[in-house]
C-alpha cells in the first residue's frame, strides 16, 4: 500500500472513531457518573471522565432505591412470554398465507398489514378501554397480549415460507404428512434465520417498551425495567450518580444480547428493507 493510501486510510479511521464517540459518548458519560466516588464531581469544566477509583456504591443504591430485581424479573417475564407467543402466532398465520389457497386469504393479509398504519397514540386510548373491559387493566396479560400480533413478523415469515422450494412441501404432502407436521418439521427449521431475527427484534422492542405499560399498569410492582428507570428519575432527591448507575444496569441485558447477535440484527434489517 502506498503512503498516500495509508494516510487516507488512517484519516478514515480517525473519522469513523470520532463519529463512534458521538454515538457511544452519552453512554460513557453515564457509565462514568455511575462509577464516580462521592468526592469526585459529576459535572465540571473540563469534564473529568475517569472515575478515581470506580465504585459500585451507586449501583447498590439504585438497586435498593427501587425494587430493581423485581423490575428486571418483570422485564424477563414480559420478554419471555411475549416473544415466543409472537413468533408462534406469526408463523402459524404466515404458513397458510404463503402456501395455501383459501377464500379470504388476501383480505386477511391486507387487514393484518393495515395495522402498521395505525399510529400508537391513536390506538392507546381505545385499546386501554378494551383491555379494561376485558378485565386485563393492570395485569401482565394486559401488557403482553396487545403486543403479540405483529404485521412485521407475519410479513417477514410469509416471505421466508414462500421461498422454501415447492418440491419439498409437495413431497411431504404426497407422503401424507399432516399440514401441522409439515409446518413443524419442514417450514420452521427452514425459517430458522428469520425466526432468530424476529426473536432479537422482539426482545429489543419488548425490553424497551414504555408507553403501553405506562398506560396499562397502575401497580408499580408490575413495572418493566424501563418504567422503573423513569420512576427512579422522577423520585426527587435521587442522586445523579445512582440514577446513572441504575440506567446503565437497565441497558446491560439488551446491549449484551445485541452484541452477541449483532450480525443477525444488521442482516435482518437488510432483509426487512428488501422484503
Amino acid at each position, binding site marked *: 500500500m502506498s503512503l498516500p493510501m495509508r494516510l487516507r*486510510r488512517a484519516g478514515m479511521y480517525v473519522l*469513523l472513531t470520532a*463519529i463512534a464517540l458521538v*454515538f*457511544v459518548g*452519552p*453512554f460513557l*458519560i*453515564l457509565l462514568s457518573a455511575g462509577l464516580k466516588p462521592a468526592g469526585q464531581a*459529576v*459535572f465540571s*469544566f*473540563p*469534564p473529568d471522565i475517569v472515575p478515581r477509583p470506580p465504585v459500585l456504591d451507586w449501583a447498590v443504591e439504585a438497586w435498593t432505591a427501587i425494587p430493581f430485581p423485581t423490575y428486571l424479573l418483570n422485564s424477563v417475564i414480559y420478554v419471555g412470554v411475549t416473544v415466543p407467543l409472537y413468533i408462534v*402466532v*406469526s408463523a*402459524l398465520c404466515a*404458513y*397458510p398465507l404463503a402456501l*395455501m*389457497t*383459501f377464500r379470504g386469504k388476501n383480505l386477511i393479509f391486507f*387487514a*393484518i398489514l393495515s395495522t402498521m*398504519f*395505525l*399510529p*400508537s*397514540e*391513536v*390506538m*392507546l*386510548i*381505545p*385499546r386501554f*378501554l*378494551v383491555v379494561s373491559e376485558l378485565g386485563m387493566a393492570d395485569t401482565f396479560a394486559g401488557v403482553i*397480549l396487545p403486543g*403479540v*400480533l405483529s404485521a412485521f413478523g407475519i410479513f417477514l415469515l410469509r416471505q421466508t415460507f414462500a421461498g422454501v422450494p*415447492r418440491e419439498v412441501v409437495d413431497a411431504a*404432502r404426497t407422503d*401424507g404428512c399432516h*399440514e401441522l407436521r409439515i409446518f413443524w418439521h419442514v417450514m420452521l427449521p427452514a425459517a430458522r434465520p428469520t425466526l432468530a431475527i424476529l426473536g432479537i427484534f422482539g426482545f429489543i422492542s419488548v425490553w*424497551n417498551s*414504555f408507553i403501553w405499560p405506562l398506560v396499562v399498569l397502575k401497580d408499580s410492582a408490575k413495572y418493566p425495567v*424501563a418504567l422503573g*428507570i*423513569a420512576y427512579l*428519575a422522577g423520585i426527587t432527591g435521587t442522586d*445523579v450518580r445512582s440514577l*446513572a448507575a441504575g440506567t446503565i444496569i437497565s441497558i446491560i441485558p*439488551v*446491549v449484551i444480547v*445485541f*452484541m452477541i447477535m449483532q450480525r443477525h*440484527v*444488521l442482516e435482518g434489517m*437488510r432483509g426487512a*428493507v428488501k422484503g
Partner: protein
Amino acid sequence: MAAGRIPGQRWYTPYLFVIPALVLFGVFFAWPAITAIQLSFLEYDVVSQPVFIGVENFTRIAGDGRFWTALLNSLLFLVGMFPLLVVVPLLLAVLVNQRLPGIRTFRMLYYLPVVTSMVAVGVAWEYVFHQQGVLNWILTGAGLLDQPIQYLLDPFWALPALVLVEGWKSMGFYMMIYLAGLQTIPTNLYEAAKVDGATAWHRLRHITVPLMVPYIAVAVTVEMLDAMQAFTSIYVMTRGGPQDATLTLGYYIWSAAFEHYEMGYASAMGLVLWVLMIAMAVLNYRLTRGRTVMP
C-alpha cells in the same frame, strides 16, 4: 399447486392456522379502531356514562390554542429530524459501506442507541445537556456560547434539544436502511465514474443519490411517522415544558387522556393526527413514485 386438493387437508385447515392472529387482530386492532372513531363523538371521563356530543370535540380542537401549539411543535419535530434522519444517515451509510477491516464494529457502535430504551437515552442526554455538562463545555470552549445554557429549561432550546436526542437515537436505524440500498449498487458504476475523473462529491450526487431514491422515499415515510409520534423523550426529559415549548401532539393526546381523563377529546385529536399522517404518507408516495431511478 393452486387450489388442488391436498391430501389430509380439510377446507378449514388454513383457517385453523390463522385463527390466533385473527382473534388478536379483532380484539386489539379492529375493536379499538372502531372505538376510537366512536369515542371522538363522545364526552367520556372513564367514571361517568359517556355522552354523545356530536362534533363538539372537533370544534373544540379548532379553538384550542394548545392543540395548535402541539401541532406546530410536531411539525417542527418533523422538519428538524429530516436532516438528522434522512440526510445524515445516507452519508453515514456511504461511510460504513467501505471495505475496511473492523467496519462491522463501527456499524454496531452507530446502531447502539437504536437498541437501548428511549428512557435510558433520555437520562443519558440529561447529563450531556447539564449546565456543567459536556455540550456546554464544548460550545463555550469553542467560543460559540458566552455562557452555559440549561437547554431543557430554555423555551427556545428545549425543542431543538429533544429533536437532537430523537434523531441521534434513530440515526443508526436509517443508516441500515440506506446500507441495504447501497449494497445493491454495482461497484463497477463507481469504478467507471472514477476512470472518467468524477470526484467523490460527483459520485455521491450523480450515482448514489439517484439510485437511492426508493430508499430515500422509505426513510422519509418512516421519518414522518416517527416524528409525529415522538413521546417518550418528551415524557422523560421535559413533560411538554417549558411553557409548552415541547408539547407535541403525541404528548398532548396522552396527557388529555391519561392525566385529565378526557377520552373523547383525546381520541378526536388522535383521529386528526391519524388523518394527517395518512395524508403525509400519500403525498410522499405521490412525490417519489414518478421519479426515474436511472438519470
